[in-house]
């Protein structure tokens, strides 16, 4: 007896229900991660002129690296450029909320910090911003993960996560890898 049309329709409906179920499980998991664990895609929209990045404003050379502001907020500013990060090493404390801010004067770059959920694109004309809490101490590799030219594979930086009691800002609130 050939398979009936009714059986085919029933099986297709069953598969449609399974597909909806799988997508629902994944959506619920993502909403749970966002609401309960505060794991969200970085969604900062902030313009910056890539031509004058180095001339004024927060991404001038003197402002780069980690700095603790008066209200205790910890921010690291990093410029991604072909084919290096400036600075190439930043120090951040474990178990404290930190903010990473990136900008680029040339082409599209991207970064991730190994072993963490930190992952963002760095697009000319925009400031990329990521908030996170590092839970592991140690030197974490932060490579460029968006092909940016011939030297792309050499482009990486280090995120040095130290215990909170070893994180000691200087009088200006700065913390640097070599000065620590």
């Amino acid at each position, binding site marked *: 007896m050939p*398979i009936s049309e009714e059986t085919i329709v029933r099986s297709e409906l069953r598969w449609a229900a399974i597909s909806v179920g799988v997508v629902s499980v994944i959506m619920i*998991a993502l909403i749970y*991660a966002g609401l309960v*664990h505060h*794991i*969200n895609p970085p969604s900062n929209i902030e313009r910056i002129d890539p031509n004058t990045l180095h001339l004024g404003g927060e991404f001038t050379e003197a402002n780069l690296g980690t700095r603790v502001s008066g209200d205790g907020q910890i921010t690291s500013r990093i410029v991604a450029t072909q084919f290096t990060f400036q600075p190439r090493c930043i120090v951040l404390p474990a178990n404290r909320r930190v903010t990473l801010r990136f900008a680029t004067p040339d082409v599209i770059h991207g970064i991730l910090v190994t072993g963490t*959920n930190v992952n963002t694109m760095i697009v000319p004309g925009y400031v990329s911003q990521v*908030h996170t809490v590092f*839970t592991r101490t140690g030197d974490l590799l932060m490579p460029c993960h968006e092909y940016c030219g011939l030297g792309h594979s050499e482009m990486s930086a280090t995120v040095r996560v130290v215990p909170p009691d070893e994180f000691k800002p200087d009088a200006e609130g700065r913390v640097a890898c070599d000065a620590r």
Partner: protein
Amino acid sequence: MPGDLDTPEASDEDLERVMRDVPRGAFALAALAVGALLAAWLLIYFLVFLPRGMVG
């Protein structure tokens, strides 16, 4: 050439019997593939993604 071989032609009953079993096998294979994929996604979600902590 298949026609040159001295093999009996499959009867209509044979064809129907084989075709009756095909969807079951296809469904089993598809369910296994989808199940394995979803299980792998959930494993990475619970064992890697969530423990890595907040980001935003």
